[in-house]
């Protein structure tokens, strides 16, 4: 029974079905329970959160990643799966906290001051949450002081800065400067992304990584995880 539920969670993650109303890739699962309904079932059945995560959620996301790499899946599929996993993690959060299980890490993300573009930022947030990180979205047009304040108080391990415009990308350097001034620079890995920036620019302003797309953000964080 428990095995079946975990397998079903995995399958529904692959299909990107958060709830029973979602259609998924094909019609085969139409009307059957989605990830959220299955989570309830799993917790009722006292299946361990660890098993749910590793054998259900993460195992499903791995398949999704493979299908994306082989071009069978598109981003909307990936996001649907990540959203399902993110919602499941929200359900598990109190359980995990009670069991003192640590998350993969805390990630803060913001579109810098002057810039109001947030598609990329939002996608990164969804994907990282789906990858098991605790994500704090600080929003758009966020001034440096607000970011510094958040880093000081909430101590995220990772900070993502986004800018679409060439006129606002310089603000990323301002944020990094402010972190240095507040002696917080070494407490957080800073990743930057957005249409205007580049690898070269990341080095120039002293960021830790440039992420060409949303997936490189996931890969970058996972690599820091492994290294730590």
């Amino acid at each position, binding site marked *: 029974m428990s095995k079946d539920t975990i397998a079903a969670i995995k399958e529904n993650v692959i299909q*990107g079905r958060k709830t029973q109303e979602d*259609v998924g890739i094909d019609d085969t699962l139409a009307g059957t329970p989605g990830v959220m309904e299955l989570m309830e079932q799993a917790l009722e059945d006292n299946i361990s959160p660890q098993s749910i995560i590793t054998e259900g959620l993460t195992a499903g996301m791995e398949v999704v990643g493979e299908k994306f790499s082989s071009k069978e899946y*598109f*981003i*909307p*599929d990936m996001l*649907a799966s990540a959203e399902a996993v993110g919602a499941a993690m929200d359900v598990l959060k109190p359980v995990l906290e009670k069991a003192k299980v640590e998350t993969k890490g805390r990630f803060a993300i913001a579109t810098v001051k002057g810039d109001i573009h*947030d598609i990329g930022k*939002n996608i990164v947030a969804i994907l990282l949450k789906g990858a098991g990180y605790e994500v704090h979205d600080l929003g758009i047009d966020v001034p440096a002081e607000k970011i510094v304040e958040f880093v000081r108080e909430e101590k995220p391990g990772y900070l993502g800065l986004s800018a679409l415009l060439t006129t606002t990308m310089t603000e990323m350097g301002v944020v990094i400067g402010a972190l240095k001034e507040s002696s917080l620079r070494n407490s957080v890995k800073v990743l930057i992304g957005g249409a205007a920036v580049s690898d070269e620019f990341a080095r120039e302003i002293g960021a830790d990584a440039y992420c060409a797309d949303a997936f490189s953000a996931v890969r970058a964080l996972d690599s820091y995880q492994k290294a730590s």
Partner: protein
Amino acid sequence: MARQGILVDRPYERLTGEQVQLIHQSSMDILRDPGLISFNKEAVEVLDGHGAVIESVAGDHRSWKVSLPEQVVVEALKSAPRTVKLGARNPDNTVVMHGDEPKVYLITGSETNIWLDVDFPTYVHKSDPAREIKVPEFKPRRGTVEDLCQSARVCEHLEMVDGFIRNVNIQDRDITEQNKDVNKYFASLNNNTKHFMSGLTSLDQLDNVVRMAELIAGGEKALEDNPIISFITCLVKSPLQLVQDTTDTFIAVCRRGLPVAVSSSPQAGTTAPIKEAGIMAQINAEVLAGITLGQLVKPGTPVLYGSVPVRARMDTLNDSYGAIETSQYNIDCVQMARFYGIPNYSTSGVCDSKIPGQQSSVERLFSDIVVAMAGPQYLHCAFGLLDCNSVFCLLQAVLDDAHFRMIEFLLRQPRIDQAEMEVVLKQIRTVAATPQKLYINYIRPVLRSGELSGIYPFEGSGEADQVFELAHERMQELLAMPVEHIDRETTARIFEEVPGILPRLNVYEREN
């Protein structure tokens, strides 16, 4: 079942109604005076019997001056079918064309002497030998019957191709004038289940070719119902001359009742006036003359209004298929054919350039896009043809197929109606109320529905342009796909009853 075609909801037209009328009337004037010169006696006799005014040309017993009164043409046009059906070995590939419906079917085109092989040799950066690149190189050679088989095979699998015109002239040592027809028909029909059209090299071979088609279709009556083959005859030589031998062929084909494209290919500047008004009045007169003759030979013969107008290049006086005017004349002809309600055989995708490359892409896209938008029924669209249709390159055909898929998508009509709008207004209101304001969740239901166009099919993964390499991979895949050959029994009967087919074309014998 039949092939779908591309319905052009609002065909692109260049001519006003008055201009169409003026061209029509001028063509009628031309057919009366100067009329035609006929080098074919039988045609003269047929036309003479229906009211044409015949005059023998002084000092020549081989040609006659034919003046066609308007009434003769108008009467003959009445019996030309508005709907023409082109059958196919696989009935799902049937093409049904209505002269008044701008629905486009894409057919491969023309006979080329040269087959262009492609290879990707490695080149090394001269001052940095570590840098290697693969560069497409094209090598011409004379086409063979095996090339024709390969071309038929790939065109079977190119989804946008609705019908096959033999595009390689077979020039093997063992191909003669006598056996060329049966071999080109067999090579094509045996490797492609779509409709097949060709010209005839030798009128002697008409019986053999028709017999072959009957055996494949399942008998004489079956071929009539499902005409898997049709013919193209250039009976008119511009300006305004009926050629002796092709007119013989045309008359013979009409008597059989098989579909036939009446084609004229004047060149503006040399064999037609350089001015658009002139080439249009003349080509229309020439095609109508051919159609008239065909209908007088056998009323109801299914004919296509075959227009292959082209402009002369000023530096060579060769055909300039790449000239913008060439497309414009074709678009005008589509409109004229539609005016008469007769399905139109038009030309696009042609180019002056000698190899696949920037120039060929630019030249052919211009004509592919705009001529397709005009809505000809039978678009002889030069899949893979280069160098003014004298060269065939399979790689280019694969590219053309992809580009026609883009054209098909482009010509789709918008799905904008009350019901659709209600759905999206609901989406807009829902999303507007969320903090993230993203519509991504609505993508998935249409993602795999075919409603969205894909990315450019030969887009590489890196910075470089890998179009040729990726198209070449696709071409290899297509070549490796099996085709449905004519069955063993029918093949045996064909080889028994139709003389001259090369034994190496018998796939069942080859197996042994």
